[in-house]
């Protein structure tokens, strides 16, 4: 076995050769630290379930060192794995001090890593299988010509189709064209926002004609939720989108949409 032989940087030079000419560095064919580890395991003909951490760690570190020596930027993910390997290695080196103590360290420190490698191997193989299929546009083709008689027939009443990503992306592209100051961020941060709350209320009013204030806050009866909900209601009221009613003093507050939206009616009357 050559595994114990010295792993000089030269060994990696052919592998890395040419890489540094590229403006962005990708560690050759290694799609991340797990991929590199699998490569090392295979190269050393090790059993994935019984890898020698000592060998793998050294070669892994050599590899990273070679990258650095060549002034290649080493991705953070690779360094995290290096730390993990060293940690496992050091845990293996630690003598079991008190054997009569509970079997705390009974588990193999490599276990978690092995499980991840095995799982990763599955998806890597699955990806290869995907790539080996007859792909539309590569090995398999569909008809592209359209019949003149049918081109004339236009889609009139059919539904529309688009993906969420297209929607966000359209918005993103649009924003790039617009000066920044035009914008206020509707939903800043992850905490409760009035904008979210307004959307929530609007959604509910689509399904019910009347909504009670209590229903809006019953799932999360916190001071913050009540205040934000109340502010959202005031805002909606100011925009004249809802009408608020209260049955009696201290009675329950409920509200209805201010306009029963029948688009056809309204469109013709004013805007269009």
């Amino acid at each position, binding site marked *: 076995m050559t595994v114990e032989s010295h792993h000089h940087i030269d060994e990696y030079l052919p592998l890395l050769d040419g890489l540094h000419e590229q403006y*962005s560095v*990708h*560690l050759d064919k290694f799609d991340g630290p797990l991929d590199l580890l699998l490569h090392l395991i295979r190269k050393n003909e090790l059993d994935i379930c019984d890898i020698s951490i000592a060998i793998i760690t050294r070669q892994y570190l050599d590899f990273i060192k070679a990258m650095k020596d060549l002034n290649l*930027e080493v*991705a*953070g993910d690779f360094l995290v794995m290096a730390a993990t390997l060293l940690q496992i290695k050091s845990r293996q080196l630690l003598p079991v001090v008190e054997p009569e103590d509970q079997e705390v360290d009974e588990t193999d420190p490599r276990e978690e890593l092995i499980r991840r490698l095995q799982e990763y191997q599955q998806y890597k193989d699955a990806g290869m*299988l995907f*790539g*080996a*299929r*007859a792909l539309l546009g*590569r*090995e398999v083709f569909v008809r*592209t*010509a359209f*019949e003149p*008689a*049918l081109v004339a*027939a236009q*889609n*009139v*009443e*059919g*539904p*529309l*189709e*688009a*993906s*969420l*990503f*297209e*929607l*966000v*992306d*359209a*918005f*993103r592209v*649009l*924003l790039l*064209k617009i000066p920044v100051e*035009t914008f206020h961020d*509707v939903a800043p941060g992850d905490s409760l926002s009035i904008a*979210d709350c307004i*959307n*929530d209320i*609007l*959604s509910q009013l689509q399904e019910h004609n009347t909504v009670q204030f209590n229903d809006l806050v019953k799932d999360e009866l916190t001071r913050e939720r009540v205040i934000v909900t109340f502010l959202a209601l005031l805002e909606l009221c100011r*925009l*004249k*989108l*809802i009408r608020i009613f209260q049955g009696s003093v201290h009675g329950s507050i409920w509200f209805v949409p*201010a*306009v029963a*939206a029948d*688009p056809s009616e*309204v*469109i013709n009357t*004013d*805007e*269009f």
Partner: protein
Amino acid sequence: MNSELSAIIESLIFTADSALSTDRICDLLTEFERGEVKSALSGLVEYHQGRGGGFELIEVAGGWQFRTRPAFHSYITRHIKTRAAKFSQSALETLAIVAYRQPLTRAEVEHLRGVDCGGVLKTLLEKHLVRILGKKDIPGRPLIYGTSKEFLEVFGLKDLKSLPTLREIQALGEQPKFERQEELQLEPDKVIPMESYLPFE
């Protein structure tokens, strides 16, 4: 008739975006004689006419093309007229603005898009993707728009809060430099045997 050649010619005509001339087919299939190609073509025409399927092989505009039989046009237009259409860019943009900035008025939509949006908004209203929430209490009392329940259905959203934010999409783009990578190049001449094409069956 060389049936392998016939099948190859069929696949060529099938995938061409306009009628394919005999000359062109011969140019593409240099390994076959012109005579073979011609007889394969007439064999194919006869075959498709005889089988009485939904389409046939027709010589049009100096080339060959598969066309549906005219008798079936009424069925086909049923599909064409009612199939799901892709959003136009302006419809998508307008819908995006309404979705992310609701409640808002037409003037606000137009301010963002920089063009008149009356027509697009009307279409979106008619498709029930956008709805009128009310009227704004400012001079002119303009209508206020928001998205509808159908909007959520079309995009498969549980509620408006499930709309991805711009920040989330932009965060995806902010990739570390090393992740940008080359596409895996396939050797162009690598011919994979038939069996390996369908690895899962």
